[in-house]
């Protein structure tokens, strides 16, 4: 399987993510994204290195199972099913996401890449996923959907990191995954507190502090 095929699927999953209002579905898509991300190194033909195999396994477990598990648990505790009335509507989000992806392709074209890395679409896909993450973060009201946006943002960064997977020592990569996992965990706890304090996880309630 060509890595570009997996990358195309990830970009498609970005589009699905910005146009869905159901929180359940959004979490399912993060599972798909996590697994696809994890599989890319194998598609790049790096499966012979033992430490990369280890990374693949850890990434799939953390991004494809553990973090979605935490998100689901948070969702069950706070009982939200739909993102209602986002700051930016779904159609507009979808168009913005498409625009961002187009711009990412142009931007990636302008940066010098190491010989041999040009035919894989990692850089444009990474920029496009980053953009999607930002879009979700700023356009949604529910704390849980914002965390999904943060996760997608991190996925974009991880995609870029795959350019360097042969060079990055395992220690640093595991550190990054661990941080992501703990970060989402802490955010999950805070969401739970928001639910108890405000009886809702709508971040519109979090607007008391201002000048």
């Amino acid at each position: 399987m060509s890595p570009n095929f997996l990358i195309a699927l990830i970009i498609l999953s970005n589009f699905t993510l910005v146009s869905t209002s159901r929180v359940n579905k959004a979490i399912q898509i993060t599972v798909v994204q996590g697994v696809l991300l994890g599989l890319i190194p194998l598609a790049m033909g790096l499966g012979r290195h033992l430490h990369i195999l280890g990374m693949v396994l850890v990434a799939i477990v953390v991004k494809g199972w553990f973090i979605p598990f935490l998100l689901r648990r948070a969702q069950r505790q706070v009982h939200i099913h739909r993102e209602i009335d986002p700051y930016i509507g779904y159609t507009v989000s979808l168009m913005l996401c498409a625009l961002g992806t187009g711009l990412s392709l142009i931007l990636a074209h302008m940066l010098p890449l190491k010989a041999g890395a040009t035919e894989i679409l990692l850089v444009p896909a990474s920029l496009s996923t980053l953009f999607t993450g930002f879009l979700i973060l700023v356009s949604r009201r529910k704390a849980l959907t914002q965390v999904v946006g943060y996760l997608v943002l991190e996925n974009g960064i991880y995609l870029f990191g795959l350019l360097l997977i042969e060079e990055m020592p395992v220690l640093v990569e595991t550190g990054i995954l661990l941080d992501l996992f703990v970060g989402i965990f802490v955010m999950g706890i805070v969401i739970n507190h928001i639910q108890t304090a405000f009886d809702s996880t709508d971040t519109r309630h979090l607007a008391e502090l201002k000048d």
Partner: protein
Amino acid sequence: MAVLLIALPLLAALAVYWVISPTTRAWMLPVTGTLHLVLVLLALRHWGALPANAWLGLDALGAWVLLVISTLFCICAFYAPSYLALRADRDSRIFCVSLLAFLGLASLLAQARHPGVAWVAMETTTLVTAPLIYFNRNRRSLEATWKYLIIGSVGIALALLGTLFLAYAAHVGGLEEPLHYTRLIQHADLLSRPWLRAAFVLSLVGYGTKMGLAPLHTWKPDAYGETPGIVGALLAGGVTSCAFLALLRIYSVVVAAGEAQFAKELLVGFGILSMTWAMVFLVRQMDFKRMLAYSSVEHMGILVFGIGIGGHAARFALFHLAANALVKSVLFLSAGNIHRSYSAKTLPQVTGAIRRTPVSGWLFLLGFLAITGLPPFAPFISEFNIAAGALTTGHIWAGAAFLVLLAGIFIAMSETVVQVVFGTPSPQRVRTPYSDTAATTAPLIVALCLAGILGMWLPKSMQTLLEHAVITVDGRMPLREVRRVPLAAAIPQAEVPHE
């Protein structure tokens, strides 16, 4: 030694979780803080140029920042037992664990020799400090915590992307892992320029968010306004210093690669913008804790401004790191005392603090005068020299703007401070049983005295440390080897202009 500095606070954090008595738990903070400070002072004898393949170690820059953070932690830790005794209704377990874990991670960051490790340390400090902001367990502190977490995490994610860009710049240039700072600086000419520039911009935005540079500071007034004063002091002097260090590490690589001009312009721009933004929000600021937050935005601006000017100003920017941390601890802790005494932190309710809590009132006033540049306190020396550095190196407009902003901020802050300290007592005020005690004021007096002493006299060994820290920031390798060597050989080298 390197490992011990990190392990001691982390082990203490682990131990404090199992301690049942709240008093013992609280007293573990000053004990660990003192031990850590002693270890740092011992380690200061050994700092020096490190082998290129070391993962951990203290160079001059790291040693200076760690010394500042450890001193600040010690001051806050001695304040903590009396504070926690006043808040006996709250469970202090997570609070103590988070404080100690922060100290351990700051030690890791100061000693990290690899950008990835430094990033992991910075990210983890964000996470361990989040529960500290939520200590008061009400809606307002929850909102502040959420903003701190989300904005801080996005900032730190951008810093990670910057770190990856830096690694890719090296990869394109044919430089492979492990990319320790020493190797990156030694082989800086190999780095790919477009990727390196992008890496610096992302790191500046990312770590700048953690420092609280305008316009990325939006979490800061909320977080500082809602946390206990002790946490505000640690965030304003400790976490921001950590982020500043992480940024300086990347900056030194950029300078070594000959891209100094580009980086410096950005830093001066962010510095002036932060100071301007802070001044606008300081005018008629009714909430004195938010006022301190904007003052912190201003001082982060001063730090990057000084580094951006370079040379003499850069040296005093590093000095300002210590001056800011010490005076901010006085301000935040005394503000915490006043807040406690009035059970309010906004202006119509809080006036005439000098009569109700004379010691805290005086400390708040002196802290304000010190931070805005009254001699002989340390911030005067640094602010004066940064301005002088800017004016004497041809940055006339930047230097003039810097001075005008300092004056404007002094006027804006003085209005609020004078009313809080001297104003006629308002009829709406609430009477609480709190009054100043030796335990809640002595650490502040020590911090203020330290700031006064630093303004007049800096020990010779500290001067050497600062000289070498500036050389490190400028992307050169300090000549001092791991053991003491005659400094006469090292210092003239430091004055050769780096082009």
